[in-house]
């Protein structure tokens, strides 16, 4: 009995390999885009890099662009599959783009496929494209190296924007909990295709599942600062702090954020009036200051004061915009819900949020100025 039993596993070898998915027999999607056609169908566009030369590492990568439409995202994907000789695989997808029109409808419906599929790449970036997503994906970009495809190019562009704090860091998964949260919203990078490149224009703000507006760069940096992002590799921005200097260039200062501390205060009065305030304490390094006289403490203080004032103004502008759009990416609602649950239950947050008293103040502390004064 034991002998026979121990031989049984050998039988397995005869049966074969059911789940084999050969790498060389799949086409890897690196970028996907969603648009709606005029008759309301989902149009999926996918970019598949294909190497043409046999020698590894030296092969040229050619982007193949496929697109298909269907009633749902999945249906269009299946149709896409049928157009391609080998199996299409989205597990290495780098970016998903939504056409602006599609983003304004509902992005969760389109993303459902990605959440449901065990093989999908949850770390793919999300972005909204001005115009149509399919246009962005099928642009022949100048910059992509010969060895990378459009997906990689777009992802890298977004990544560098993240590093300069122009856009917040988000991917399919990080957006998901926020999308479900009644007390918080999110923002995605907003791309604009130029002729041969793509430019990151700022952030697209969402409310629930829908896009409700944009904040353009450089204001989007202030937006990212307000999220409490500690500091990124190059969170820097240029601000005009004087108005009277000539030439015009002398009015500006550029700084890099070294430390960013956020305190978020939510006050709820017994009557249920909500007020919120974001206070940022930033430690910055001046990286450009053509006036070159940061030697005296007085001058440094002056710069600090002016910067703080300017940034606070910007921050309040951002908040105003957000309230107008009814987008709550800083999670004021979440705070109310967490600490003042009984109040939250009574409020209709959607209607209350645009009217709450929401302020921001930024306090700048210059801690360095490069190697010259």
């Amino acid at each position: 009995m034991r002998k026979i039993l121990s031989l049984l596993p050998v039988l397995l070898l005869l049966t074969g390999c059911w789940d084999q998915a050969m790498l060389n027999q799949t086409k890897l999607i690196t970028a996907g885009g969603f648009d709606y056609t005029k008759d309301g169908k989902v149009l999926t566009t996918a970019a598949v890099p294909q190497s043409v030369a046999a020698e590894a590492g030296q092969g040229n990568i050619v982007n193949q662009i496929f697109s298909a439409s269907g009633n749902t995202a999945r249906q269009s994907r299946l149709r896409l599959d049928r157009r391609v000789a080998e199996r299409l695989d989205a597990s290495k997808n780098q970016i998903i783009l939504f056409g602006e029109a599609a983003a304004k409808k509902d992005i969760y419906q389109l993303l459902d496929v990605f959440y449901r599929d065990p093989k999908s790449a949850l770390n793919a970036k999300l972005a909204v494209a001005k115009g149509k997503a399919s246009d962005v994906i099928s642009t022949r970009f100048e910059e992509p190296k010969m060895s990378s495809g459009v997906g990689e190019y777009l992802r890298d562009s977004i990544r560098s924007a993240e590093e300069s704090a122009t856009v917040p860091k988000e991917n399919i998964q990080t957006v998901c909990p926020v999308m479900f949260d009644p007390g918080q919203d999110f923002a995605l990078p907003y791309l604009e295709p130029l002729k041969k490149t793509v430019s990151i224009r700022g952030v697209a703000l969402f409310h629930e599942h829908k896009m409700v507006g944009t904040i353009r760069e450089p204001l989007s940096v202030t937006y990212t600062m307000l999220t409490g992002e500690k500091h990124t590799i190059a969170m820097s921005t240029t601000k005009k702090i004087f108005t009277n200097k000539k030439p015009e260039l002398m009015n500006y200062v550029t700084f890099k954020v070294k430390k960013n501390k956020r305190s978020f205060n939510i006050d709820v009065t017994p009557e249920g009036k909500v007020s919120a305030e974001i206070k940022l304490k930033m430690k910055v390094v001046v990286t450009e200051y053509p006036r070159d006289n940061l030697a005296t403490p007085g001058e440094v203080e002056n710069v600090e004061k002016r910067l703080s004032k300017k940034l606070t103004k910007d921050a309040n502008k951002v908040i105003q915009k957000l309230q107008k759009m009814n987008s709550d990416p800083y999670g004021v609602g979440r705070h109310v819900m967490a600490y003042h649950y009984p109040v939250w239950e009574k409020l209709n947050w959607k209607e209350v949020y645009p009217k709450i008293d929401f302020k921001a103040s930024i306090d700048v502390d210059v801690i360095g100025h490069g190697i010259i004064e």
Partner: protein
Amino acid sequence: MNSHTITHRQLFFLIVQTQIGVGVLSLPFSLFTKAKIDGWISLIIAGLFIQFSILAIWKLCDRFPHNTIYEILPKLMGKNLGLVFNFIYTLHFAFISILILIMYNSIVGKWILFETPHWVIIFIMTAVGYYFITSSPREIARFFVIVTPLLIVLFVFILYAYTDVHLLYIFPVGQTGMLTIIKSSSDAVVALLGFDASLVFLAYSNGTPAKNIKVISFASFCITVLYAFIVFTTYIFFNPAEIIIVPEPVLYMLKAFSFSIIERTDLVFLSIWIISVATSFISYLFIAAKGVQTLFGLNDHQKGAPYVAIFCAVIAIIPNEKLEVLMWNKYISLTSLIFSALFPIVLLLIAVLRKKQEKGAASS
């Protein structure tokens, strides 16, 4: 039996490895469906509750040193009733093994091997389980000790989730009400099952009773803490509205992580998790085989082992729909709660009331 004894340290690892099993992946979800975001409190309550069961099991086994539950039952209830209960317990443990197989199969089928026939996935686990239980508890315990460091790897993976958590999701604490929280802790008890393996393995331990109870209790404590950590992490990683649609939150969470040398950490996590599942399965299969040995009066458990293994594999193949799996899960969880967590307390009461005690128990 002398050559098969295990040390109390090995007992610790036996219990730890038996406790960590299928539960890890779906526990946050199953707790959430009942207790909402306060599920982690339920878990801690359950952790406290099982300490009582553990105490009862230990007291019971202490009255009959070096006896497994199968030897205790006839002594406690008389020969015939004891036989009936032996049968029930054997079946119970066999069904826990089956439940482990079913859950393992459904998760593997859902996450990595989509096309592979179910019988293959189940069969391969059973074959491995069979190979393991043909040896003595000592070797099994040694193996369990070796694989325990892998838990640290799992822990580190989960720790990575803290790069993107929303601590506010856990608030307001106690939103669901104390009663619901306590009620749903029964679900948590099921996930913490594994301490019941001490009903059999205590008999093999050569540690002093005081050391034994410390070890089992500490093992369960560790697992409770680990589980609470996992549940807590998933609750602050996912939005409460999101968990409802994610039955395996831990895996889902890991799926989103990628490192520069490896992406899709969930696949690595699953591979390591399978070892944890295998260890629980092996423990229960061993216990079931021990039961068969007692029932049929066999010389050693190896003789009954292949039949137990085949029995479990065949039964485990039956449910193949998701809803069926859930139903099996529900019923077997219920019986587990009764026989593993509650019944030992009853047995102890019987033993105390009828003053049943093995001679020399006090001295040992």
